């Protein structure tokens, strides 16, 4: 569920960059205070371990598909939230640079979705209280599954929210959320089970690692600060969400209210169903959709925002100019390459 640069706007990407960079600075500062440098190689190797673990797939029982470990929660259990957050952030950093998984601008979003939620939400607020101190196997299982599910749901919601706020994709909040959340529910359950098993393997072999990792690092005051930060974030999210929902009623709801003459049709459940139905309807009539139906569908949309009108004339000149631009670019690339090659030959 990596976000890609192509789907986000600079405002969303920039905001999330600032938030994630702030979190990295915060985590680093706290680590510097509490940590001896023996932990730094451990963090690096653990990050590399997450990479290696993600390369191995497992089959999800009952389905033909396969999945792999996300690892945020596992790292938080092993290293504590701050070190785990930094390790996950650097895994995402390397993925963005070398694997082109997610993008540089989307990196802030990805660190937020995949790092902050498991490390600062799922682990301290769900896993720790549920697993308790004298951890029995069943407690670890329950705690891991619940924490993994919640962490992934929050992350998936983050992806949906950031995508919709950016407005590059046409997917509406409800439609995208109703696609993403159920999928990540299943992934979360498996992630939790795998995490619990790995934790119990480690506990049998090296119990001291777990004591070392998740010790007394979360002092009371900072615990509360994290909680307060999350509450503020939740309030902001809710506020922005309400604004978004009211400012852009989607086409179908608009049409329905026009037909029934009623203004309040937004029972949240009905909204999700209506939206899903709209998606289904659109996809189902796809093979033989004519432009007439497209127009009737489109009419509702023109109400909410007027797009810059593009006439056919400017489109043609845009295409011609575009082709010429690309030719010029290709030529300049060729020239640069030739020059650097001849220089190399001259030097050698």
């Amino acid at each position: 569920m990596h976000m890609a640069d192509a789907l986000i706007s600079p405002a969303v990407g920039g905001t999330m960059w600032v938030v994630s960079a702030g979190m990295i600075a915060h985590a680093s500062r706290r680590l510097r205070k509490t940590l001896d440098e023996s932990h730094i190689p451990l963090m690096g190797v653990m990050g590399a371990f997450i990479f290696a673990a993600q390369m191995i797939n497992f089959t999800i029982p009952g389905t033909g598909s396969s999945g792999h470990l996300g690892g945020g929660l596992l790292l938080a259990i092993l290293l504590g939230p701050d070190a785990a957050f930094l390790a996950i952030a650097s895994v995402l950093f390397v993925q963005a640079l070398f694997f082109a998984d997610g993008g540089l601008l989307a990196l802030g979003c990805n660190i937020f979705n995949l790092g902050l939620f498991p490390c600062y939400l799922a682990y301290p607020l769900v896993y720790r209280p549920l697993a308790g101190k004298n951890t029995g196997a069943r407690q670890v299982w329950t705690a891991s599954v619940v924490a993994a599910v919640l962490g992934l749901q929050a992350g998936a919601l983050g992806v949906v929210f950031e995508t919709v706020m950016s407005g590059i994709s046409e997917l509406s909040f409800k439609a995208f959320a109703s696609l993403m959340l159920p999928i990540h529910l299943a992934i979360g359950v498996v992630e939790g089970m795998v995490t619990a098993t790995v934790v119990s393997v480690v506990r049998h072999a090296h119990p001291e690692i777990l004591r070392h990792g998740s010790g007394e690092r979360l002092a009371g005051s900072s615990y509360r600060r994290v909680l307060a930060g999350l509450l503020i974030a939740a309030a902001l999210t809710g506020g922005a969400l309400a604004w978004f929902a009211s400012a852009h009623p989607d086409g179908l709801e608009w049409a329905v209210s026009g037909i029934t003459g009623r203004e309040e049709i937004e029972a949240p459940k009905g909204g999700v169903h209506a939206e899903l139905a709209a998606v289904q309807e659109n996809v189902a009539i796809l093979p033989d959709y004519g432009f007439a139906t497209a127009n009737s569908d489109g009419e509702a949309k023109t109400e909410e925002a007027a797009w810059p009108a593009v006439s056919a004339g400017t489109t043609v000149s845009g295409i011609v100019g575009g082709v010429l631009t690309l030719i010029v670019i290709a030529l300049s690339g060729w020239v640069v390459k030739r020059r650097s090659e001849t220089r190399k030959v001259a030097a050698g």
Partner: protein
Amino acid sequence: MSNLEVHFHEIGVLDRIAAGDTFVHRLDPRSKLLATLLFIVGVVSFGKYEVSALLPFFLYPVVMAAASGMPAGLLGRKLLIVAPFALLVGILNPFLDREILTAIGPVPVSGGWISFTSIVFRFMLTVSAALLLVGTTGIHGVCFACEKLGMPRVFAVQLLLLYRYLFVLADEGIRMFRARSARSFSGRAPGPGLYAQMIGTLLLRAIARAQRIYLAMSCRGFDGAFRSRTPVGWHVRDTAFLLVWAAFFTVARCVNIPEIIGSMFVQ
């Protein structure tokens, strides 16, 4: 699995290209990082229906690839490998947004197709810029630049360590997986139970390795910082590089160059 091995091999290739010695390689990592970030912000700041104005931005990756000797085939392959997510979300646009915005000759084009094309172009531009940054700078250079621009040292150091041990642990994982599939039928991936056992073993080995690494590093005087052998400094060429590209991005962002060129011919 073999796909992943190829994937990892290509990271090694990227590393080798990053060790090259061209004009682009010799630039200060900071100037390349800043230029790349300006480029990405410029590209993604366009409205969702913008297609033609994005095209001049291809000049940056094309020139950078040509000047640094980055093979176009490698860039293309990497683009293809990571394309699915962006395309999957983007391909819904033509189905959801069917308002006719324009026409190419007799064929009407809906807003959804325009915004989908725009997403594809954005994707190609931003991903290739990121790959070119790392392919001409290397992970050490990027980390150096980030640290100079304010990234915490703890983060930078463990990022470099992660990168160093990535290949070692990946090899270990691949070996483990290969041994397991050599002893089982039908080539299917293991179930979650066995998977967790394998991952657990890998984890224990990784931890043991981390302890060995730390001891070895302590013996050699590790004090929490990496020291680079190659001195990098900001020269006039870095300022020029950054200014020229920043100027180009600004012009290309504010003026639709292809439309102007096109209107000269189409009148």
